[in-house]
């Protein structure tokens, strides 16, 4: 494996210069392949060791009864873990909560970001400020974001309750501590964090829509809504599809926000799967069982994405044929 990287630079410097360059056309392909391998190898190794190998081992673990102890001693357990999972109502509950969290955040992110992107694209003032503001949430460490929102949501002396009180609404809500409000409250934070990036991407897409199309629609007397549904949305569909898929995965995988905000509480009402699996593995030390949960969760996510992407491509095909 090390041969190309060792010989390549030497050969390069020893190569006689220009005159022969035309003759080298054929060997070039092979040289280029070797060069390519030499250049890519350094990135391949860490990737193989620290992301591909763990993935393989992770799938393997799911079929064992491994426990997180100092001297691990585990054996193949076949489908035992999965059978056990079937009866674990808490796990399925966390999957349900994870879906509400993921779908909720993803859709609200898209809606809010689309609104902001349209506003920013319509030539208002304050664009600079908004754009900077829109990127800050995304840059901040998730822990800081969570601490900040805990203060906002605070039941005593929090600004949100103070505001509600000032406008005459109930103002003694324990947002993160109450069974009914905890999940929505956490979802709002998720939207706050992820909206900026979506906005930036959508804005970039909006700016690629040819102005003539919208002008033509305006000349035809189309309303703003009609312009959006007839011109903007179809043109943006590919971008929306890709950003929605990515957001879906990111939101599903997100751990830090929920962990710091509520740690899954109150009463497991915000226990998303990643958190559930983390606790199962590192608190209960059941890593084989936890890996099985991980596998199930990954399969569910991939299936949902596949269905979504398929439906999107179908609509696009139909749109193509319709033209």
């Amino acid at each position: 494996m090390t041969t190309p990287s060792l010989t390549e630079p030497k050969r390069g410097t020893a190569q006689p210069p220009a005159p022969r360059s035309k003759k080298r056309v054929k060997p070039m392909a092979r040289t280029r392949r070797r060069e390519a391998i030499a250049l890519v190898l350094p990135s391949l190794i860490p990737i193989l060791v620290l992301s591909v190998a763990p993935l393989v081992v992770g799938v393997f673990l799911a079929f064992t009864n491994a426990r997180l102890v100092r001297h691990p001693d585990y054996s193949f357990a076949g489908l035992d873990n999965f059978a056990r999972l079937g009866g674990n109502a808490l796990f399925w509950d966390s999957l349900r909560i994870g879906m509400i969290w993921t779908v909720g955040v993803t859709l609200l992110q898209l809606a809010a970001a689309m609104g902001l992107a349209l506003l920013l694209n319509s030539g208002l003032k304050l664009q600079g400020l908004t754009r900077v503001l829109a990127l800050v949430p995304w840059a901040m460490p998730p822990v800081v974001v969570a601490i900040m929102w805990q203060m906002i949501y605070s039941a005593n002396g929090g600004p949100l309750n103070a505001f509600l009180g000032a406008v005459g609404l109930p103002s003694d809500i324990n947002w993160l501590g109450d069974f009914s409000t905890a999940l929505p409250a956490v979802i709002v934070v998720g939207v706050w964090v992820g909206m900026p990036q979506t906005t930036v991407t959508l804005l970039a897409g909006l700016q690629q829509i040819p102005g003539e199309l919208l002008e033509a629609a305006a000349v035809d007397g189309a309303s703003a809504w009609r312009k959006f549904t007839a011109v903007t949305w179809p043109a943006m569909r590919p971008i929306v599809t890709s950003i929605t898929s990515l957001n879906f995965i990111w939101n599903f995988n997100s751990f830090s926000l929920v962990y710091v905000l509520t740690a899954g509480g109150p009463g497991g009402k915000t226990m998303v799967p990643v958190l559930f699996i983390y606790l199962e593995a590192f608190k209960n030390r059941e890593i084989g069982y936890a890996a099985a949960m991980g596998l199930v969760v990954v399969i569910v996510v991939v299936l949902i994405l596949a269905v979504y992407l398929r439906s999107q491509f179908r609509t696009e095909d139909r749109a193509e044929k319709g033209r």
Partner: protein
Amino acid sequence: MRLLVRPAQYVALALYILFLGFPLLWLMSASVKSSGELNSLTVSLLPQEWHWENYTEALTRQGLLHSAWNSLLVALASTVLSIIISVPASYVLARLKGKVRIAGVGWILVSQVFPVVLIILPLFLILRTLGLADNLVGLTLVHTTYMLPFALWMLQGYVAAIPTELEEAGAMDGASRFTVLRTIVFPLLAPGVVATAMFSFVSSWNEFFFALVLLQSPENYTLPITLNTFVGGEGRTALGPLAAGAVLAAIPSIVFFSILRRKLTSGLMAGAVKG
């Protein structure tokens, strides 16, 4: 009707600014409030008196400065590593056609879907076997690996923007590929490398999950982990210093992001629009 559109748009924009900006303002305000004011039930955006000592207290608070130092070390090391590794690979990714490119781009996309829940357990076991769990070197390696896809993606965009004619001219003059890379491609790539490096630094500085799983001894904690330990029981009583610590932890990321704003936008766009 038409006349109402603009004002309505400004109202909407103001609501967005409030939603995005208010939490930040509140955090900053809390960081200079006295604990008495923070615990009182009268709520005001601006502090009655400014208490800068929250910041000195945050800095002298046990562990905060030390874990900031740990974060800095890990972020710098993993940034340098990921850049060294990804610059050559990004060149290949941008220039070569065919299978190499498909495989590379494919992997970058797949890496976005990588199931963290499935990877973290074996990763922990592998690092523990290597004696690198609860170790800053181990965390650095993990951060490096998980930055690579995005670094590669950003950098290959910058490579693609360098005209191949420049390289061909160099090759005509008899320069080897490595000379061409060193004298022509890498210098032109410098701005892209800087942008990518800043992004990598921020990702590592902010990273929480891997650090939480891997690090067990408080002397190895990174800044996010230490901040989180303050959130619980103890933090409740000292909200001011906690807020100050949070502001300090956010500063490097925000500074870098404001510098990066444009570059990042185009990098992301490439990912979303072309991907």
